[in-house]
């Protein structure tokens, strides 16, 4: 409890070895990063920082509530956006997993527990390469996406996951922005880079994306045929 302001805060106490963590998070001013209010040293020599107390649920519990696909993708987008931002500032997360993502009561998404060099990730979400870099975060993002997607999801979404979790880092998305671009394309009904879709699927996608236009063109052709036959009666 911050008595001066009469508000509850989250307090993290840690070994001085990881003193850089507060500075690392303070560098990331982003709506999806929990802001730090204060950092300092305790009388026993340990470090602490006080940050906003986020009211919400962890992503694993949130996903168990069966949110819609659009909602799942919205959360994933927020995570990818904050990763793209962090990577642009030279920060990698290293431990991306549902337990480190909070969905707030107003739908806001927070990515927490930002990377300390000593952390080597959580086994199920960690990239296979020995030294972690920004592409390792892309791998974890892909595993997170696989965790979030319902079993019967679109082949385009499954292809995005497959590309992101490729064991060869060079075969993954080069950055979070490229990953986001494919998610955008999927949501807009456009072709995704990760999947060479069959022709029939491309036509189906084009048809559903442009259904109104196709109906209008069909109506125009119908009107012209109708007028033609009315004239010949």
């Amino acid at each position: 409890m911050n008595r001066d302001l009469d508000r509850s805060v989250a307090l993290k106490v840690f070994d001085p070895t990881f003193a850089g963590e507060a500075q690392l998070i303070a560098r990331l001013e982003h709506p999806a990063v929990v802001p730090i209010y204060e950092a300092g040293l305790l009388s026993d020599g340990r470090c602490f920082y006080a940050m906003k107390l986020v009211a919400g649920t962890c992503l694993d519990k949130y996903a168990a509530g069966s949110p819609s696909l659009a909602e799942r993708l919205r959360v994933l987008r927020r995570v990818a956006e904050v990763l793209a931002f962090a990577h642009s500032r030279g920060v990698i997360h290293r431990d991306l997993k549902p337990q480190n993502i909070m969905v707030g009561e107003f739908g806001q998404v927070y990515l927490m527990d930002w990377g300390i060099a000593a952390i080597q990730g959580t086994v199920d979400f960690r990239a296979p390469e020995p030294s972690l870099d920004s592409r390792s975060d892309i791998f974890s993002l892909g595993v997170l996406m696989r965790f979030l997607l319902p079993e019967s999801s679109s082949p385009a979404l499954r292809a995005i996951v497959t590309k992101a979790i490729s064991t060869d880092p060079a075969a993954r998305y080069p950055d979070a922005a490229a990953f986001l671009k494919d998610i955008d394309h999927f949501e807009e009904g456009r072709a995704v880079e990760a999947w060479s879709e069959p022709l029939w699927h491309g036509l189906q996608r084009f048809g559903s994306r442009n259904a109104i236009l196709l109906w209008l063109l069909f109506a125009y052709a119908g009107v012209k045929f109708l007028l033609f036959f009315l004239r010949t009666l």
Partner: protein
Amino acid sequence: MAEANITMNKILVGLLFGLILGAIDGATAWFTPEVRPMITGIMVGSSVKGMVVGLLCGWFARKVHSTMWGVVVGAALGLLFAFLVAAMPSANGHHYYLEIMLPGFVVGAIVGFLTQRMGTPLGRTTEDMKRAG
């Protein structure tokens, strides 16, 4: 539609598609033998009508972002201007209300749809919008 980055503003999109679709609609008069000798005049008139409808649809699309209302307003404008064209005195004294107004209605709806789905609002390019965040 709009797969690529389109840097035209909505009024330009309306003018362009109004011109193209108007010209194509006018060209279909070739299938009506009694007006075939007047095909050039019909195509020019139909293109101008399409451009006016496109201009108004583009202006509307800059103010209101709704595919449904774009189609409705485009169809209404198409119908109105097609009526004005059909009511004009013709060389053979006939008025082709149905033949002009029915396709004009649908072409207007198409132009209204396209101005909603394509082009950038308020004359900005997609790059401008990306820069503005």
